[in-house]
């Protein structure tokens, strides 16, 4: 740990703690999940950066959306996202969450994930390799440092819009709004 790091620890311990313990939801949304095992095992060893898969969203603070998101999956994605404790960060992995990718004209795959939940960063590619995950993680560190990984804050702020978008695609949602007051306000 160099001196620079130490000062950072003293200045903003919370940020540092979040940076170096990014626990990802082990949520296999699409084909991208095939890149996760090499990432966390001996070949690339994500654990040295503090990135490990978490068993449940309750333990996690990083949401890697690994691949296309069908309408049905979106439901689960939203629910999972809302169950994660704040602060939480989302990273769209691969082309599909960004713009639909090869499923751009599918009748059942949503094209832009950030219309429904806030995304802090994207990893483009089809498929991105595990190295790209590390790049994303380092970028996320920078964003956290700069307070720019504020997806959860945006979600809270614009919850009414997010909720409306979700409902537009999914129809009636069976869970109550996460933030009651903002929606009414």
């Amino acid at each position, binding site marked *: 740990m160099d001196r620079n790091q130490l000062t950072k620890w003293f200045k903003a311990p919370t940020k540092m703690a979040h940076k170096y*313990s990014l626990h990802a939801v082990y949520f296999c949304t699409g084909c991208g999940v095939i890149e996760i095992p090499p990432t966390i095992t001996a070949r690339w*060893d994500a654990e040295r950066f503090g990135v490990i898969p978490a068993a*449940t969203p*309750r*333990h996690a603070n990083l949401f890697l959306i690994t691949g296309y998101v069908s309408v049905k999956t979106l439901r689960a994605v939203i629910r999972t996202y809302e169950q*994660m*404790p704040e602060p939480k960060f989302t990273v769209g992995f691969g082309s599909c969450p960004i713009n639909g990718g090869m499923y751009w004209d599918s009748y059942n795959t949503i094209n832009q994930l950030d219309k429904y939940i806030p995304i802090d960063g994207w990893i483009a590619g089809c498929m991105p390799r595990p190295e790209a995950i590390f790049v994303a993680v380092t970028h996320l560190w920078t964003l956290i440092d700069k307070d720019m990984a504020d997806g959860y804050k945006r979600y809270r702020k614009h919850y009414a819009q997010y909720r409306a978008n979700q409902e537009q695609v999914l129809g009636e949602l069976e869970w109550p709004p996460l933030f009651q007051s903002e929606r009414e306000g």
Partner: protein
Amino acid sequence: MRILWLVLSPLIALAVGLFFLGLSRRVMARIHWRYGPPLYQPLIEIFRYFTQKGSSHGVLFGLGIVLSLAGSIVVILFLPFGGICSMSGSGGMLVVLYMMLLAPLGIALSGGEAANPNASIGISRKLMLALGYELPFLLIVLAIMTHYDTISLVDIVSAQRETASAFASFPLVLSGIAYLLILPAMLGMRPFEVVHAPQEISSGPIAEYSGPYLGLVTIQHALTTFIGISLFVNLVWGGAGNPFVFFLKMLVVLAFGLFVNAAFPRLRVEQAVRYLWRWPTLIAFVGLILVVTLGR
């Protein structure tokens, strides 16, 4: 002085326990041919948990985990740590045995309140597994208590320091071997990791913890590791005269546990209980019979 130790011993235990957690991750990574996280990774994670926003499922949800952790802390106060025992004269080993109940019980209660069946499954596995290792463990503890004719841990430790450690003296060596055989189960390491199986039951009892609650659970895990190992060192390895030697002994025991952990796959709970009730129990039973028949 005693007050000071009362305050210090949980902190030491926490530090050692966290160090053990970090070390074990590191060692496991090395065995996997990985680099592994820094040693202070558990600390970072606990810090992160405490700055996250936890979600509570009810009063008991928080209360249970508090109870569990408090129980572990109290147990630590009763354990001699290299010549230091903060509460030596308040009931001895029996209180320790009982206080060790609080930890799983508290987690079980708060996990139950969370109404997640994964938690319930984990708890049921935990309790069954505990029933499994408790039988040989009790045999071991009783052999030791009978051998030294006391229920006080401090006396057991000092008795071992006077003669040889239990591990090296004849009738107790069997108990010591049996203890080694059940140690992974008591520490919750593989092959007895079925309680927390993260892939199948989403880490079981702790599935619903988030934020500070999860932080407490991690601390609790650290303390439990500490308790398990130090109990072993105290009971069959003669404790130690000073904390440093004690710590070294603990390290050796931990290393043993880690190698077992790395080498084995997970057992189903039936298999685990069957194993625990077969060889360790048999050996511990013979040990107890020897202790009773040979006398001191």
